[in-house]
């Protein structure tokens, strides 16, 4: 009996620990006052509405969206064939390659950002936007390879051979029988990549320039100057966006199977 209550208590505390900050931010954003505080001074929706009027947020939101969408798409375009090759062919040093591909997960983002700045942006004069694209693609790639790989492990190669014997080329067999069967994994990888890229801070921290900032960096910068509840409101909205996407993904794809 006590064991049951102990485990419930731990579960409850864990939930509070995980969801607590989220709730505090939602409530802080509902403030009627002028500065970020908890508990808030009165309740109003004005900061939630104000968020949409701040121009720099709008610009950085579009940049972050574009980075998340296109960066992830490019990462998938590279990651799906890579995952396929790693699973299908006897590639020498496959394990080493897998480790290298996973490296950005292991290496702290700050180092990746600094390295990109120091060795790509500064010496070559790569534009910050392009550097951001490279960085986000590279960042999402490990997730793409991993998630797609895991959806491919149960896929037997004789299915493709069957397609070839029915007249397909190797390439069309990939599109006609492999892709439809890993579609769930590819979508899951896209969502995971999208959320990872969108919420990414450390790498983007180094890669910002005049008028070019991702949304999280822009929010940091905004907070340094203006300490009002709009940042809390925006954070809450973004959190709802992420939760919404993951919820839909779970509902329609069984997302948790892949990650």
């Amino acid at each position: 009996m006590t064991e049951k209550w102990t485990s419930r208590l731990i579960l409850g505390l864990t939930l509070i620990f995980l969801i607590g900050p989220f709730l505090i931010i939602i409530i802080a954003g509902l403030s009627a006052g002028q500065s970020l505080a908890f508990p808030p001074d009165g309740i109003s929706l004005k900061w939630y509405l104000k968020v949409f009027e701040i121009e720099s947020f709008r610009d950085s939101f579009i940049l972050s969206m574009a980075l998340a969408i296109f960066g992830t798409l490019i990462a998938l375009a590279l990651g799906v064939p890579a995952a396929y090759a790693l699973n299908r062919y006897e590639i020498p040093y496959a394990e080493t390659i897998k480790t290298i591909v996973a490296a950005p997960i292991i290496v702290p983002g700050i180092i990746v950002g600094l390295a990109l700045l120091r060795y790509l942006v500064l010496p070559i004069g790569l534009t910050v936007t392009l550097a951001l694209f490279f960085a986000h693609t590279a960042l999402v790639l490990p997730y793409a390879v991993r998630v797609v790989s895991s959806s491919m492990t149960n896929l037997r190669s004789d299915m493709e051979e069957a397609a070839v014997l029915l007249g397909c080329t190797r390439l069309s067999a990939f599109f006609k029988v492999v892709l439809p069967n890993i579609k769930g994994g590819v979508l899951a990888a896209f969502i995971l990549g999208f959320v990872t890229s969108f919420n990414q801070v450390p790498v983007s921290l180094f890669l910002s320039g005049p008028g070019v900032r991702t949304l999280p960096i822009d929010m940091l910068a905004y907070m340094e100057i203006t300490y009002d509840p709009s940042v809390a409101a925006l954070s809450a909205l973004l959190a709802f966006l992420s939760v919404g996407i993951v919820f839909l993904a779970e509902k329609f794809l069984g997302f948790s199977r892949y990650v």
Partner: protein
Amino acid sequence: MSSPYILLKDLTLAYGDMVAVPKLNFSCDKGELIALLGPSGCGKTTTMRSIAGLLAPQSGQIYIDGKDVTNVPANKREIGLMFQSYALFPHLSGFENVAFGLRIKKLPEAEIVEKTNKGLDTVGLLHLANRKPSEMSGGQQQRLALARSMVMEPKVLLLDEPLSNLDARLRLEMRAELQRVQRETGITMIFVTHDQSEALALADRIVLMKDGLIEQIGTPDELYNKPTSVFAADFLGFENIFEVSNNVIIGDAGKMSLDFKSESGHLAWRPSGVKIGQGKYKAVVKSVAFAGERREYVLDAEIGVIMADVSAQKKSYKIGESLAFDLPKSEAHFIEQAS
């Protein structure tokens, strides 16, 4: 004599440095039903895959219908292969699985529908056309795979262990199904099996393989009654095989003199050919199993273990009992092969 429909000439198949099938030579006529028989790992699947074009030979040629197809890619060879795992497309319905190859061929839609329905009908799956393979039983999946290959009207249909994943009753059903389809279409079929009874029951001719080499080719009758090697005899149910030299049979445990004259080589008896209850040899019953109509004995004799199986109507012996037995000349099969 017309040229053979399938001809494998000095076909050598390897995985890297490991030669799985060295210098295979084989031919068959159009419409034949060939069984590729042999223990697991002897190179049956490897041979099939190379005929289908999925495995490029290290050397040698493959001719089909008079043409050298050694370098023709798999998707142009017009050969059907039914995989041991069926390899159905899980994301497609039964109908679309069967229509898959016809769509690749870009046939007109009406023709695709007609051929697919006919194919599904032939294997009795028309009513399940809208189901996914995962919603079908093992036997239904297998028939779907068969229909998918057959609608392409391949020159040759290869089947890799087509019956091994089925339970006993379905196996008989599918066996009949294969025979019927083969008879109705007259298609040339090669099927792989490691089960001698399956090969004997179905095939026009059996190719017995061992370690990548052909051990014997012949009709079921020839293989069953006249195996030419110790391996073939053993594989086809001669469970008592002994070396013979100067009218003495030599077993693992010892020697016994033979009461009839024989050339040197090997002599083999099926368990059913061993007489027990009388004879010049003595043995002790090591174990006995009741198998309905018959009783299967394992005997401990001077030359080693003897397998005997006799009608259950006859007198039965218990474990540990001594008995007399005989290896009669009338039941002996002589194999020229020396040790």
